[in-house]
């Protein structure tokens, strides 16, 4: 049984400016070069007529700019973010509550741990088509899709964080005659906060997948609609632009959440200690 606190170790962040090794001063340059290289390769590959469904990089960017300019992109994301926000909020609220309960009470843990571990490891996306039958095709259905994907990871992260709260600090609290309530509120929860927040971040990522799948499978709205529509009328550049925007959007969103996490919860990491 595992919880992720991040999609694991990130590779070599912060080796950008290494004055002790002049060769590495240009890391950012090389990274940019590699990005440029990929785009160039994409451009060339698109021009080779292997598949009609593979637009060039420039066509994709043009389509992207066009859709942003006429506001389609923005309104699409606004539409998509609605069920995402609501779903993450609900999953977060109940998920953290259940996780804390599991972390503090053995019986509660016994009841809920196996089911959430199963849900976390299973492809719950398979259930998305079923959601329509219970919740129709509107905002509710998509919110439910977000919840079933986001909740397990939030619960498990919270539970692990609370259960593994520093025994040292708990003992310290007891040595100063802290009550159980004081222990939970003043020590355990703050101690678990960074990992709980990491769980929320992962929940957002998972929920995002849920809402897009719901848009592709249930009813087209938002960004999912842009993908489906342009695929159906064979305007591949636009379709690719939409997919590309999702990748970029996700990276930015998760990156922002990570910044919040580091600055607010782990100041010691920020200072590079």
């Amino acid at each position: 049984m595992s919880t992720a606190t991040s999609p694991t170790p990130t590779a070599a962040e912060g080796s950008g400016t290494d004055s002790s090794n002049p060769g590495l001063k240009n890391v950012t340059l090389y990274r940019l070069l590699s990005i440029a290289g990929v785009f160039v390769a994409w451009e060339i590959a698109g021009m080779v007529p292997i598949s009609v469904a593979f637009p060039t990089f420039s066509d994709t960017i043009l389509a992207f700019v066009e859709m942003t300019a006429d506001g389609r992109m923005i309104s699409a994301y606004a539409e998509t973010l609605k069920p995402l926000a609501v779903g993450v909020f609900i999953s977060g609220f109940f998920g953290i509550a259940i996780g804390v309960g599991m972390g503090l009470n053995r019986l509660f843990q016994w009841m809920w741990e196996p089911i959430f571990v199963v849900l976390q490891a299973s492809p719950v996306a398979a259930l998305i088509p079923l959601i329509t039958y219970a919740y129709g095709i509107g905002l509710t259905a998509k919110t439910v899709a977000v919840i079933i994907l986001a909740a397990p990871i939030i619960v498990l992260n919270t539970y692990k964080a609370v259960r593994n709260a520093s025994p040292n600090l708990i003992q310290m609290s007891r040595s100063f005659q802290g009550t159980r309530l004081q222990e939970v509120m003043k020590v355990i929860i703050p101690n678990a906060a960074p990992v709980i927040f990491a769980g929320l971040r992962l929940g957002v990522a998972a929920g995002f997948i849920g809402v897009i799948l719901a848009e592709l499978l249930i009813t087209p709205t938002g960004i999912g609609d842009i993908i489906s529509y342009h695929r159906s009328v064979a305007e591949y550049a636009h379709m690719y632009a939409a997919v590309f925007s999702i990748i970029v959007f996700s990276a930015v969103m998760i990156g922002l959440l990570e910044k919040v996490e580091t600055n607010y919860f782990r100041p010691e990491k920020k200072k590079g200690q």
Partner: protein
Amino acid sequence: MTLFGYRIPPAYSLLIWIALWEVVGRLELAFILPPFSSVVEQLFILLQRPDFHTAALLTLKAFAIGMVIAIIGGITIGFIMGRNRMANSILGMWVNIFASAPLSSLVPVLMLLFGLGQTTIIVTVVLFSIWIIALDTYAGVRHISPSLSEMGHSFGASRWQLLSKVLFWAALPEILAGVRMGLIRAVKGIVIGQLLVSVVALGRLFRTFSDNFQFEEFWALTLILFVFALVFSSLVGWLEHKVEYYAGSRI
């Protein structure tokens, strides 16, 4: 938890949930949720249907091929990242982006490019699992104490010998953890692929069942997939357990 003095392992709480499922089904509280017993009944029937066999075999083959590619590719990338700083800074950036990106959004693109058959499934499996395998391998390689490599060199090991006799085994616990995660992600990827392309293999079955309100069959198929994911990840977990004995004491 203990009952009458006997310790009941956590997994048994699932029985309570299953019982709940049965009750909800029998009382017909939600029409999408038939009783667990009828789902199980359908499961056995499903397992014997020829169309299921073809669909499952196709998917399984593609899954296996994809996992092999992802494992070999991921471990290679992870090792390169771990041993070469320049490669790490560049490759690392890409691996990180793809590991946390919503890959499901790429599936429609894959379908366009690779058609609706086995190739797409293989590509999906590779795409979903290779990044996490690479990242975990990288972590494993970083964990290896430099003195282990120095020891190998001092006894005259060639590059390949060092890799295959020392480094690979030293990083194995993390590699296995990565493979387990990769496996789970790959299954999710396949399911998503199948859902979006509901014209072949399992996707077609899913579509048929849900279109025809055959919820018992639908849940049966879902259960099979869930169990498959769990069984395979437990197998890798068992392997991880086997190498656990030295994982903690690696200097």
